[in-house]
């Protein structure tokens, strides 16, 4: 690719990304009342999206090969246990990450 072609390619990646981020705000402008259905979707959606994001992070974990997802399962259990115990966001995240790093570096 020439430099111009690279610039055009990057510009289209920027455009595509911005379309996905701005579109809902451009369609449902504050000037007009947002349809009830969209308000409902916007309200019930967040917990489902958090679930989707967890699955998205784990999408490349293979249960059949390698370490069979065991480091991920153990580390997530540690995150959950720490969080239910102390309910300190940063502690749960740091604890689970350290356990995961130890597992993939030393055990699996």
């Amino acid at each position: 690719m020439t430099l111009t072609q690279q610039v055009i390619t990057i510009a289209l990646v920027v455009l595509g990304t911005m379309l996905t981020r701005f579109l809902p705000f451009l369609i449902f402008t504050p000037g007009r009342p947002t349809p009830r259905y969209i308000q409902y979707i916007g309200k019930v959606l967040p917990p489902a999206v958090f679930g989707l994001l967890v699955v998205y992070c784990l999408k490349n974990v293979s249960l059949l090969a390698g370490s069979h997802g065991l480091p991920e399962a153990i580390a997530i259990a540690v995150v959950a246990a720490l969080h239910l115990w102390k309910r300190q966001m940063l502690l749960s995240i740091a604890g689970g990450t350290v356990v995961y790093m130890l597992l993939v570096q030393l055990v699996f």
Partner: protein
Amino acid sequence: MNDTKKAALRAAFPYTIPILTGFLFLGVTYGVYMRSLGFSALYPIAMSLTVFAGSMEFVAGNLLLGAFDPLQALVLTLTINARHLFYGLSMLERYKGLGKIKPYLIFGLCDETFSVNCSAQIPQGVDRGWFYFFVTALDQIYWVTGASLGGLFGALLPINTQGLDFVMTAMFVVIFLENWLKEDDHISSLLGLGLSLLCLAVFGAEAFIIPSMAAILAAFTLLRGRLDREEAPA
């Protein structure tokens, strides 16, 4: 900086600490990756500033090495980033009436910024708009800093960081769990988790996001009679 902004920055920063760790690490990885493809440090720096969507930036590195195909670049970007549509829908009410910072909040609405701004308990007396702004801006600063460092000096990294990227997974798990502990019913949480897992099993890692989004929307549409209540949006 005036007191309103200072208070918002102080409230926002702790929420971004996991992202500081994750983005510095992933940003450095991205910078090193781009160098390994043969690009100068300018590329990861420019992409992290303008695209600001982690996984897409990795893909864009590969696109630049292939034949020039603008349509493919656009369609691929729309596909990979389609999940942002859900973030926008979820933030319509929260970002309402925030004036001149709003375009930047939408520009910077990445996975991590969305999860924090959508779930954080903003303390009483802290300005909502500036809280959202600082979470968004700090996250982007972390990412650009990481990508720049990786592009410029990445090869010199001395420590074994294998597994550090799990910090992002851990953060999403905590946000999911924290929300689980607060919500009245778990229908939405379970639908999101279950339908995404199902679609992952059926469509595979590269193609499950859009079917998951469609399945989640369809489920909510079918369940509207049961889930839609007249109270004002949160």
